């Protein structure tokens, strides 16, 4: 009965973790560029109670030993990187990635990656007369050479579908590099930071986690849409049904605890 109680308790912990993941997804239902998370369950290590040879009786199906499990736990949290719906904003520096890839930004000296393309130009205090492209947290957006995207503050700037930064200074159109967009190769290795950003863990390099583009430019089958933002890809209905299922599972585990408690009380009160 203690076994039942332990296994119900372990399971409640596991289910709680899954509920946390669901809650995070639902909270980010309207976060631009958010990718929903999920986790799966796995039964915990099973103990085998040894049985002597005499237990091998006629009519027995399985090998010797009586196996008991100890509940369920969650596995790794993984992300669903599928495309979110695009919403038109008409802001030329609102960029959405169609296909796979992530923008690279410089977040406090560290390189981070994001799907959230709500960028804008701010005057560059270091170089008067120029402006620099930042995201909504003020982190610098990087180009393919890992440099900041800096243009004259009198120019008009547009981003083409290939991610090229087109600069119009009174008729003459020049390019100021290409946005750095990398396709994740082993997305499970990416670490989540606050502010919808991901970083490559210190023990790894960018090339291990992202695919190296053959000739610079965007990954294959990927394009940039200017004037659009990618909405969260959270499947609300799916999350709600998942949540209902998890709540029921949690309830069942709680019932199992109540049931084992009754059994313990029966054992305790055997002598009236």
């Amino acid at each position, binding site marked *: 009965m203690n076994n039942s109680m332990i296994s119900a308790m372990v399971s409640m912990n596991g289910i709680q973790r899954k509920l946390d993941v669901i809650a995070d997804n639902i909270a980010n239902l309207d976060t631009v560029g958010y990718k929903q998370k999920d986790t799966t*369950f796995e039964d915990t290590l099973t103990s085998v109670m040894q049985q002597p040879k005499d237990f091998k009786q006629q009519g027995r199906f*399985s090998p010797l030993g009586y*196996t008991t499990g100890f509940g*369920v736990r969650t596995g790794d949290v*993984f992300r669903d990187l*599928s495309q979110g719906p695009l919403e038109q904003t008409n802001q030329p520096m609102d960029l959405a990635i169609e296909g*796979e890839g992530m923008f690279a930004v410089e977040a406090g000296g560290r390189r981070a990656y994001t799907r959230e393309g709500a960028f804008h130009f701010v005057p560059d205090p270091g170089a008067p007369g120029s402006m620099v492209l930042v995201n909504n947290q003020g982190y610098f957006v990087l180009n393919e050479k890992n440099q900041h995207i800096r243009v004259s503050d009198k120019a008009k700037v547009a981003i083409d579908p290939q991610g090229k930064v087109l600069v119009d200074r009174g008729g003459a159109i020049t390019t100021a590099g290409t946005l750095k967009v990398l396709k994740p*190769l082993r997305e499970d290795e990416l670490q989540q930071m606050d502010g919808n950003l991901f970083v490559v863990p210190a023990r790894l390099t960018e090339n291990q986690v992202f695919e190296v583009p053959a000739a610079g430019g965007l990954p294959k089958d990927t394009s940039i849409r200017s004037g659009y933002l990618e909405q969260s890809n959270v499947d609300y209905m799916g999350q709600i049904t998942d949540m209902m299922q998890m709540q029921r599972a949690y309830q069942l585990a709680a*019932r199992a605890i109540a*049931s084992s408690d009754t059994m313990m009380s029966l054992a305790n009160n055997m002598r009236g």
Partner: protein
Amino acid sequence: MIRGLYTAAAGMLTQESRHDTAVQNLANINTPGYKQVNSVARSFPEMLLSMVGGASDVPATRIGKLNTGVFAEEALSLYQQGVIRESSKPTDFALVSDMEMTDPATGQPIRFDGSGKYVNADGEVFYKPEAFFTVQDQNGELRYTKDGSFKVALDGSLLTQEGYQVLDSNNRPIVLTGPADRFKVDEQGYVLNPATGARGARLGVAVVGQPYQMVREGNGVFRIDDPQEAGVRPVGGTDRVEVRQHYIESSNVNASEVMVDMNTALRAYEANQKVIQFYDKSLEKAVNEVGRV
């Protein structure tokens, strides 16, 4: 009298095991590839009771057979196919298997019962073979699993959630070269080349002739101690086994059945406890009232 006291105590222990099993099933109601466990109880060996003593001219009379207890003998997995669910991950796999066998005596196809078993007229028992993914644990040992929710390690190797290496049909690790979304596997388990569509390595799927010989190890895997007896072989061309990418096999636990099991075990435990109390009352009488002068 004392005999019955121990019988009831054995009953309590058995119901406890049954309760544990029911709770374990309840806990794994959402575990992919989980197979429901049924606890099987067996009575203690029977003994023959005879009357002794009494008048010398009355021959010894046999009273009858009696067994003095019960124990939880084995925990059997029910290998019925779970519901196949669609998933968004390219590294999710479901095994759909519905193996057929013909009865050698009659030549007719066997109709297995719900637990995957068939007994023919001669009393011969047949088991429904089941298909499993082959994986390798950290110690290099072969393990079998129905849970196809795999993940990709940094070096591209395909792993189970626990981190066990998924093997191909030659027991070599499956390693992805590109990103996971370019990993394509056809229905027979062959990994397809993303550019040409040519077949490469094949996911290791083993057919186990006697699935009851498998020992549950937890972490979603089973172990086979005697591969010969269990009848393990690689999947063949005529086997009705299908590998489905982008799908996952749900747990086959039947929630209402397990809930009933749990309540039954609890109440049977209670009944056994009551029997112990009744014995205690009888003993009390014997000690305090019968002996009183």
